[in-house]
């Protein structure tokens, strides 16, 4: 297993201080089909050798196509999935192997904002109960009524009228529901929020509002974000750095502008070409489709080769024989490619 030498957070806002979250050589397996009827299920490696640091108050955008493992990475950091290999250190504590009680305690510091604001709020709970729930669960208040003032404060924080406190979520629009979800995530004053495509289910017109709100909250409360998205244009707006995932591996990680202006990895370049350009005079060239995603069986077989080598224009013999490791290119750029 290759591990990163040295710190990865150089050039980020809080460089020098200890990072809030460091992930080293993380691997996650899912259960695959059984080889024998009574045998144990085979393992499919969905995340392989992921390493990064996240500073306090920083936003790291995680970008990749469907199935690249970006949401899985978020859930692994939340410790909702078993870790097959590697280490996760959060706020100075190793959280790689936590018992159930420890994982529940961890939820005070790491919270999550979900993709779908319609199904992530219990339809039978009022706004008050929804937002007060984390406070009740962690024994901060006895009942939702006791938390009424705190909840009202949280509603103000996310720019929702306080009169809505006794309403059920079905009367709200998607953007408003997502604000409720954000208020709920904020209730425990977490240090890290994992945002799993928080705006992709929203109307384009309200995406900016929600993203701006998240930025304002970050400036006010000093939260770090792990911002998962498949859409580079939203991510560019909010992220300090961006990590590109491809089939369970990180292929490139760099500062926001560096990625956009000088994509190093061929896959990053392909993704960027797919972003629609509003000004017809600035064409980036025709988007090329990335190579088709492999079926589950193929993923297991891939073994040594670079997972992008099949559809990559720059692929050489070396790419097909040996998977590239992340190596440092420049002050704040890491790339996993032999040819870049």
């Amino acid at each position, binding site marked *: 297993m290759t591990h990163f030498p040295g710190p990865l957070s150089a050039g980020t806002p809080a460089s020098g201080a200890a990072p809030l979250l460091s992930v080293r050589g993380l691997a996650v397996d899912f259960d695959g089909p059984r080889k024998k009827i009574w045998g144990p299920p085979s393992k499919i490696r969905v995340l392989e050798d992921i390493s990064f640091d996240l500073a306090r108050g920083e936003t790291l955008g995680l970008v990749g196509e469907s199935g690249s493992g970006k949401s899985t990475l978020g859930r692994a950091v*939340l410790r*909702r999935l078993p870790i097959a290999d590697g280490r996760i250190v959060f706020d100075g504590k190793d959280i790689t192997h936590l018992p159930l009680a420890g994982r*529940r*305690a961890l*939820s*005070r510091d790491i*919270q*999550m904002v*979900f*993709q*779908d604001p319609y*199904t*992530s*709020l*219990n*339809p*039978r*709970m*009022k706004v008050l109960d929804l937002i007060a*729930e*984390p406070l009740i*669960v*962690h024994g901060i208040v006895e009942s939702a009524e006791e938390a009424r003032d705190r909840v009202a404060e949280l509603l103000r924080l996310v720019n929702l*009228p306080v*009169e*809505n406190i*006794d*309403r*059920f979520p*079905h*009367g*709200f*629009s998607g953007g*408003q529901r997502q604000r409720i*979800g954000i208020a*709920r995530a904020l209730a425990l004053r977490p240090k890290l929020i994992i945002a799993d495509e928080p705006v992709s289910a929203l109307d384009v017109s309200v995406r900016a509002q929600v993203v701006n709100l998240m930025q304002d909250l970050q400036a006010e409360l000093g939260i770090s974000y792990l911002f998962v998205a498949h859409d580079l244009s939203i991510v560019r707006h909010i992220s300090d750095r961006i990590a590109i995932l491809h089939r369970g591996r990180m292929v490139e990680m760099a500062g926001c502008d560096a990625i956009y202006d000088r994509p190093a990895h061929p896959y990053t370049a392909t993704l960027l070409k797919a972003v629609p350009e509003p000004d017809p005079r600035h064409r980036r060239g025709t988007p090329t489709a990335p190579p088709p995603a492999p079926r589950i069986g193929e993923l297991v077989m891939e073994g040594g080769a670079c997972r992008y080598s099949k559809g990559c224009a720059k692929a050489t013999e070396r790419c097909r024989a040996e998977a590239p490791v992340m190596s440092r290119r420049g002050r704040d750029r890491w790339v996993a490619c032999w040819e870049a």
Partner: protein
Amino acid sequence: MTATHLATIPAQRPRPAVFRAAGGFLAELSKDKAAFAGFLFLVLVVLAAVFAPLLAPHDPAAQSVLARLKPPAWTARGSAEHLLGTDMLGRDVLSRLLYGARASLLVGTSVVLLAGSFGVLLGLVSGYRGGRTDTVIMRVVDVFVAFPGLLLTLLLVAMIGPSTPTMIVVLAFSNWMIYTRLVRGIVMSMRTTPFIEAAEVLGCGPRRILQVHVLPNLVPPLLTLAILEFTNILLAEAALSFLGLGVQPPGTSWGLDIANGKNYMLLAWWPITFPGLAIALTVLSINLFANWLRVTTDPAEREKRHARGRLRLLRRKAAANG
């Protein structure tokens, strides 16, 4: 969406006192005519069951050979002595009807509650834990379902001896599986919904998740199932009593009376018609009331109903204005 608009929807007005809640409940119920009628009939049946000794004109078990098969009071040969006539042993049908409500309601509700709570509990555990626990529980359910219900019941009653409590336990014993299957299925599909994951991420333990997040969302389907089951149990009670394994004479139940009256059906329609009507009307009333309750317990459905009501009102106003 503005704050003033949100504030004008009345369903969410806070109602602190319990009696005000009861008043609100009746006010809301009275808007749905069918449900209100069903509710009234149910109240009537419950009152009849509770106050049967005060209301019944005769001892329900008192036989009178001279007054056998007297028709109801409003027919040519009827008398005011027996308003709904008498059965083949000269027992007063009305008195038996009032006392019979006791047995039927008691057996129906206690079986549904007993079987329901046991079945729901197992279903919750099975659906939420999954894996080996789920496999074991579901295989037990399969065995119970595969076993012929009547045979099991006969076997148990023969072992313990026929009586009303025995019947309740035995019926619960052979009717809990359907709750487990229903609840397990819903819980399994609910486990993957984001709001359950959100609750887990917030730090909720399994107990709180089941109590606060899963169970309230199970109320509408469970209500529907429990009511269907209640009617089933009423009929099962009748069947058991008919076979002599349920309510024992001199006790009465609607099912027992139907079973007894069946043999005289062509001679006298009344001993079988009135308990039959009682069962049918009770079942119908429960259905009407439960349908309303199901909608009322769902906040989204409730608001839709409110909106429909407003729309109807507006249309009527518009029509009145020309």
